[in-house]
Each structure stands twice: as structure tokens, then as C-alpha cells.
């Protein structure tokens, strides 16, 4: 338990707006968007810049207090769930876009800048920031770095790691590490590569330097309507095999369409469709035209009964708002939603989607599918009520089984939501103890006290041990006796 003297120093440093100690204020930080796990932090700190963040961390280091970094709290894997006796350090008061350099197409932002704000600011220079997680209206760029976030357009443009050119972070001791000069990016050890996706275990990111891309000459959205989810998945497999490159390929199934169409984000998806496929095409007018024709041929061959095309920005915005609001719209079905985040080989999309639905059905759970079909990142969505303990048990089991099925068929645990608390033990499905030990050693080197976001991502017990104790856990890696 941190001491009153420490509280006094932090209060003096951050002021009443930046140092929260009242119970209701702390309670509001007890979970991120994974409501299943909760822990009220001792205090919540909201520094306003790198210097203040470093000063906070130095003070916390004095008493060895554990730190959980947090952005907007939109994470779905419990990566920002506080730890008992620890504090949450939140970046939402660091929301300045520090610089946009249109010539070199670089942006320097504070970690708490909301993803969509950067795109808005960049648009004034004819540029855009490519990674666009569905929560982009709310999620922070610092959080995107920590989770290596993707989004629909990750299919063409890649995930956050492809766009980060520099970072400033504060480590557990309160040292500022400035790796933000974009010229240094290719020189020396790839520290940024190590950092991106480290889920807050290596420090607190305070500034990010990001690549901006020139806005495409023409952008068009295409909505293909299918009478079967299976057919839509098969169409994706074929159009990827044909080497076609729309910038995004998303699929929403019937349950999802119903929820979206009942919400403020109603996009005009037909309610009698079993699935819709939403695509973005961008490039030069000739490229977009040609790609459109090629897509049309394949989609029709796979039984798409109708194709809608939109070039008007307002129409496109509406089509996409439906997709991006899909997660929240599920709130209409039940109080809570579990979102799996598995990645499937794109040749086996249809098989794994059907399998997830079957796994849920067997456990008596509803399963809605909405996913980034282009990069095989599936999001089986399971609606439930966390007040029902048996439902929670079945939901977690379903999640585990879906992951195991995916891994068994050549896929993996997570595409973009991170491991956090929720998938921590499932790391043993894809890594052996020996592999995980390397990750643990890297972490130890950068945070010897293991005070940064402890208990997340890396299993706290050996995989061998877990397998021995819980042989019923599906999918755990086999070990020789």
C-alpha cells in the first residue's frame, strides 16, 4: 500500500484534476471495455505531458508501486484492468497534436490523442492516418501502439506497427527514453519493434511519431449482399487468392445486421440478408474502376444477389458507421458482450466461422459474427449477462474453444485486441515455456522490478504446470512427459 507521503507528493505534482483519490472517481477506472474483470486502483494519475509523467513514475518508483497504463479504456482484453495496490496512469489529459509535417508526412502527437482526431487534422493537408480500429472515435493513439491495433483498413495498409516512426516513453524508473527522431528508425536494434504491442509492460508511452499517407485520389465503398454467410466467406477466400487488393474487406452476419439497423448507426444494410460484405476500393480512377469490375465478377460468381456502390462521402460514412458501431450496437441484445479476436488462415474462413457458431450453439450461447475478413481476423461476438455466473463460465469456455480450434487449423489467438488478462493463459496454446522465457527476459531487462502492468500478457505460471493442473483446458501445447 503506497504511503500518505507519496500521495501528498503526487497531489502537489498533479493537482486535484490530475490526482484522483476519491472512491467514485477511482471506481470508474475499475475495468476497461472488458467488464468481466475489475479492480479499483489505489489512485488514478493523469499527467499532462512527458515531463510530468516521468516525475510521476519517479515518485512511484520510490515506493515500488505497480503501474497500469491506460488510454481511453476501450481495450477488449483487460490490458488496462488495474492491479490491486497499484495505480492507473491515464493519458487522457495528454491530447495535443504537437506537430503535423505535411512535407515529410509525419505527425507527432501526445499519447492520449484520439485516433480519429489525427485523421481529421491530417485531412486538412490531404493526408490520412491509416490504422482505423472500430473504436477509432474514442481510442487513443498511445493505446493503439501498446496493442498494435489494426482495423478494417489494416488489410491493405497494415497494423499500427507499420506506421510508427518514433516513440517517447517513460520507463518504470521514471527515465525518459526518446526514440522519436524518425531518422533513427532503421538504425541500431529495432527497439520500436519490441515496444509496439508490449501492452504497457515496458513503460508508459507519452509521445508518438506516426506516418501519414496521402489520401487516395478516389475512394469507393462497395456493399455486397449475400444470402449465406458461407458464400460470403468463400468469396473472400477466392478474391484474396486472385490477388485483388481492396483496402478493406469486412463481413457482418445477420445477427449483427439486425443490431446495427436498430441503432443510431443504421446504415441501410438489408435486414433479409444473411450476410453483407463491406469493401473499400481506393487508388486512381482507372485502378478503382478495374478493381471494381474484377470484384464484381467474383462476388457474383459466389452468389452475391446485389451490389451497392457508393462514392459520395456521406453515403460512405454511413456505410462504415454501421460497421464501426457494430460492437456497441450489440448492447441491444444483452448487457455484456464478449468479443473473440482470433485469426484464421484465409483459406479456411468459412470453416472456422461455422465452427465458432457451432461451439457457441453447443454451449447455448448466441454468436454474432462481424469480422475483418480481408486479413482473416474473426470476431465472434457472444452476448451474455455477467451477473449470471454460469453464462460467464460458458462464455469463457467458448472463447477458449474457439481459440483452440483456430490454432489447431493454423490460426492464432489475437489479431488486434491484445492478450491482456483475458488471453494470458491461452499464450500456452502457441508458445512453449522456453519461448515465453525469452519474452520474460526482455521484459526483465527493461523493467527489472516488474512493476509495469504486472500479470498481463505473459502467463504467471508455467505452461507445463497449467497443463498438468488443468488437463481439461482445450488447446494447451503438448509437452513430452
Amino acid at each position, binding site marked *: 500500500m503506497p504511503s500518505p507521503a507519496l500521495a501528498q507528493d503526487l497531489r502537489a505534482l498533479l493537482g486535484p*484534476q490530475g490526482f*484522483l483519490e*476519491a*472512491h*467514485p*472517481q477511482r*471506481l*470508474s*477506472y*475499475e*475495468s476497461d*471495455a472488458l*467488464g468481466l474483470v475489475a479492480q479499483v486502483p489505489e489512485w*488514478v494519475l*493523469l499527467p499532462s505531458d512527458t515531463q510530468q509523467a516521468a516525475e510521476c513514475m519517479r515518485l512511484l518508483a520510490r515506493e515500488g508501486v505497480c503501474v497500469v497504463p491506460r488510454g*481511453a*479504456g*476501450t481495450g477488449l482484453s483487460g490490458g488496462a484492468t488495474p492491479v490491486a495496490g497499484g495505480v492507473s496512469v*491515464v493519458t*487522457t*489529459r495528454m*491530447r495535443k497534436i504537437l506537430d503535423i509535417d505535411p512535407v515529410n508526412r509525419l505527425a507527432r502527437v501526445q499519447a*492520449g490523442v*484520439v485516433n*480519429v*482526431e489525427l485523421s481529421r487534422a491530417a485531412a486538412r493537408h490531404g493526408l490520412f492516418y491509416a490504422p482505423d480500429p472500430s*473504436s477509432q*472515435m*474514442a*481510442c487513443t493513439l498511445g493505446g493503439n501502439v501498446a496493442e498494435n491495433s489494426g482495423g478494417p483498413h489494416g488489410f491493405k495498409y497494415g497494423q499500427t506497427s507499420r506506421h510508427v516512426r518514433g516513440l517517447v516513453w517513460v520507463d518504470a524508473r521514471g527515465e525518459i527514453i526518446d526514440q522519436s527522431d524518425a531518422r533513427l528508425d532503421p538504425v541500431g536494434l529495432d527497439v520500436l519493434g519490441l515496444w509496439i504491442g508490449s501492452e504497457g509492460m515496458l513503460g508508459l508511452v507519452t509521445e508518438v511519431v506516426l506516418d501519414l499517407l496521402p489520401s487516395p485520389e478516389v475512394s469507393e465503398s462497395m456493399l455486397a449482399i449475400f444470402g449465406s454467410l458461407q458464400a460470403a466467406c468463400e468469396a473472400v477466400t477466392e478474391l484474396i487468392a486472385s490477388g485483388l487488393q481492396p483496402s478493406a474487406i469486412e463481413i457482418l452476419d445477420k445477427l449483427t445486421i439486425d443490431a*446495427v439497423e*436498430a*441503432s*443510431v*448507426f443504421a446504415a441501410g444494410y438489408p435486414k433479409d440478408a444473411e450476410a453483407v460484405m463491406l469493401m473499400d476500393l481506393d487508388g486512381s480512377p482507372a485502378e478503382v474502376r478495374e478493381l471494381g469490375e474484377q470484384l464484381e465478377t467474383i462476388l457474383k460468381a459466389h452468389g452475391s444477389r446485389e451490389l451497392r456502390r457508393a462514392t459520395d462521402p456521406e453515403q460512405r460514412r454511413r456505410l462504415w458507421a454501421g460497421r464501426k*458501431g*457494430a*460492437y*456497441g*450496437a*450489440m*448492447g*441491444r441484445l444483452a*448487457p*455484456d*458482450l464478449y468479443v473473440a479476436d482470433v485469426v484464421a488462415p484465409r483459406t479456411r474462413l468459412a470453416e472456422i466461422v461455422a465452427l465458432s457458431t457451432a461451439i457457441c450453439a453447443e454451449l447455448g450461447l448466441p454468436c454474432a459474427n462481424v469480422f475483418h475478413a480481408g486479413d482473416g481476423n474473426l470476431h465472434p461476438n457472444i452476448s451474455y*449477462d455477467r451477473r449470471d455466473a454460469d453464462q460467464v463460465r460458458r462464455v469463457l469456455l467458448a472463447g477458449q474453444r474457439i481459440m483452440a480450434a483456430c490454432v489447431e487449423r493454423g490460426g492464432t489467438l489475437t489479431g488486434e485486441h491484445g492478450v491482456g488478462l483475458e488471453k494470458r493463459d491461452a499464450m500456452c496454446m502457441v508458445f512453449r515455456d522456453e519461448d515465453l522465457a525469452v519474452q520474460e527476459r526482455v521484459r526483465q531487462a527493461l523493467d527489472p522490478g516488474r512493476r509495469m502492468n504486472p500479470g498481463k500478457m505473459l502467463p504467471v505460471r508455467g505452461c507445463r504446470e497449467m497443463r498438468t493442473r488443468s488437463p481439461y483446458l482445450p488447446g494447451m501445447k503438448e509437452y513430452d512427459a
Partner: protein
Amino acid sequence: MSAPRPPHLPTTLDCITCGLCIPTCPTWQQTGRESQSPRGRVHLMRAHQEQRLPLDAVYAQEMEDCLVCRRCESVCPAGVSFGALMETTREELVQAGYRAKPSMRWLLAQVRHRKRLHWGMGLLGWAQRSGLVRHMGTLAQAMPAVPPSSEREPLPDFAGAHSPRVGEVWLLEGCVMPELYGRVNRAAMRLLQRVGYDVRVPKPRLCCGALHAHAGEGDVARNLVRGWVQLLEDVGAPDAIVSTSAGCGAHLAELPRILASDPDLARRAEALSNLVIDASAFLARRENLERLRPLLNPLPEAWLPLAYDDPCHLCHGQQVRVQPRELLDAIPGVHRVELLEAEACCGSAGLHSFAHPEAARTQLASKLVDLEQSGAATLVTANPGCHMQWETGQRTSTAPRPVRHLMEVLAASLG
């Protein structure tokens, strides 16, 4: 008379904690604090309902700071009725003894008595003209200039339609509106007459109770609704009940919801709710707009371009966004520009600008920048609170622009 407690906030469960609402929230924008965001506030309401969080002064403050602008509702994919949750929460807080500041309670007590308000405003106007107001409290100093008494005359009980007559409407007079912006109500009356409606302003002139409901004074609000329901049943229903104030309109259009604890009254209030409509939405109805359009003449050149700023309780509370713009665009030769963030709150938010003048000023500051950048010569609004707030902003501006209610602009165009 005390109504039974409303069912205990079951709708907090609608929130799935996706967080899409957070960046749209004015108090979050100012603080960056989760408990000052819609998701955070719903989380605390749910925690309280699960008996994990007792009511305390901090909880009360986090709830009290909310502007109830309801912008979060416009972006909530799960459809959480945030405004309704907040009203229930505040009512619970008031009942537990966490009451508004005495000055706010005093203000609330005045607005629902038309006579008291009229005398009070007269007194304030006199104090303003004599300079005495400088020695009065901050609340009095924050009030806008009170117009001369000739402009504060109540509306006539009845005004006949120009022919051809097509029907009868009631005009909601409001509380602050007749005292500060009587000209707006008279403009609306003229417009309604010209498009063919008899306009009735039935007695007694009742307050709608919106401000009371927002402040957690549910009993007062429900009593006022009873009065309204009785009035409607006594006088007989018109074709529509037209409001020039977005706040009153939004409140009256949702009566069955706020009366959930009193099913009998809720049922009777439904008829009333169904009739209430904002003046802009009413005039923009196709048949009305067709009659109005030929009557409109070009506006003075100096008024243009116009910028319309959406009152929160019109766009977020009643989903009225297109109609005011359609009406303005129907004026011959009009030039209208869009504000960057027309759906962001100006900081007025009912009594908020009086209870939290500092936060309200900060909130307005970015709107003033948007207005400046839009190049508009006139700011058009459709709600008395927003009207006051924008005028306050113009008082300190280096290039002040006139602020006009949509009805004033349209009536001016009638020639």
C-alpha cells in the same frame, strides 16, 4: 404529493462500455476524467444500483456537473437513454439530501410562476438600467439585459389564422422566453397565422417543468405535467402544440418516459406528448412549407451569411436537424454556412451556465472560434438558453454578431 420511486435504473445495463460516447462529452473534453464521461457516469450509476457505491458528495458532484446535453445519445450504438438515467439519478440524489445550490433552487422556484418571474424580471431590468445591478449577487449580474416591459407582454390568448385557415395550434409560451425573448414568440405566432393556423395560448400559462426534471425535482415536474394533461383534457386537443424552445419541446415530447412511475398519468400524457412539436419541425412539414415559401422575401444583406447552431435538445433530444436548415434555405437569396461543430453544446445547458459559469465559458470558447472561422454574420439558434449563452459570448467579442432565433429570422423574411 410524492410519486412512487421509479424502477431502479435498469437501463444502465444497456451500456456495453464500448466508450464511443466519451470524446463527445463536454465535461470529459474539459477534464479527461472517466467519471466525467457518459460511460463513467453510467458505470457509477450501475455500481450504486449494485450497492457497491454509496451516494456521497463526490458522486453527487460528478452527476451534477453533467450538462445533460445528450450528445452521447446521438452516438450511442447501444441506445442508452442517458438523459433519462441522469434525471432519475438526480432525483435520487435530491431525495438523499444532495440538493442544488440555494441560488439555483431559488431560480427553479421562480421560473414555474409566471407572475413571480414577470415581477422579478421587471425588478432586474430596473436594476440593470439604474446601474444598481453592479451591487447585486453574481447570479443577477450574469443575467442578460431585460427588455422593456412593452416587449414582455404575455401573448394574446388567441390569434386568428390568415385565410385560408387550415387548423388550430397551441403555442407554448415558455418561462424565460416571454420575459427575455417575447419577440420570438410573437414571430412564431405571426408565422403560424400566416400559414393558416389559429393560434391559441391557453390559460393557465403553465411551465413545462423541464428545468425541474433536469435538476432532479421530479415531483415538481410531475405536478406540472398533471396541470398540462388536465388543460389538454379541458380545452380539447389542437392539431399540434408548437414550441419555440428546444428544451421544453424535448421534455414534453418524452413525458411517458419521465412518468414511468405513474402509469395512469403516463397514459394520459401520451396524447400530449404526441402533439408537441418544435416550431421548426412543424413549419417544415411539407404542406406548411409549401404555404410558407411564397411568403418569404430576401433578408437584409448585412445579415448574411447565416450559421445555424443546433440546440442540443433539438438535435440530440428530438432528432430535429434538417428542418431548421430547410426553412432557412427556403428564404430567397439566402446564404448559409455550417459551423464546424454545430452539434456540440454551447455551454448554456439549462441552468448549467448559471451554476457553473466558468465551465460554461470554456465550453463556449471553442464555439466562438468556430463561429469566427465560419465567416457567418448572424448566428441562428432555436432555444432561449442557447440564445442567452451566445449573446453572452458576443458581449466580450471583438467582432460581435447578432444572435437571432430561427423564428425571428423567418418572420423578418415575411416582410
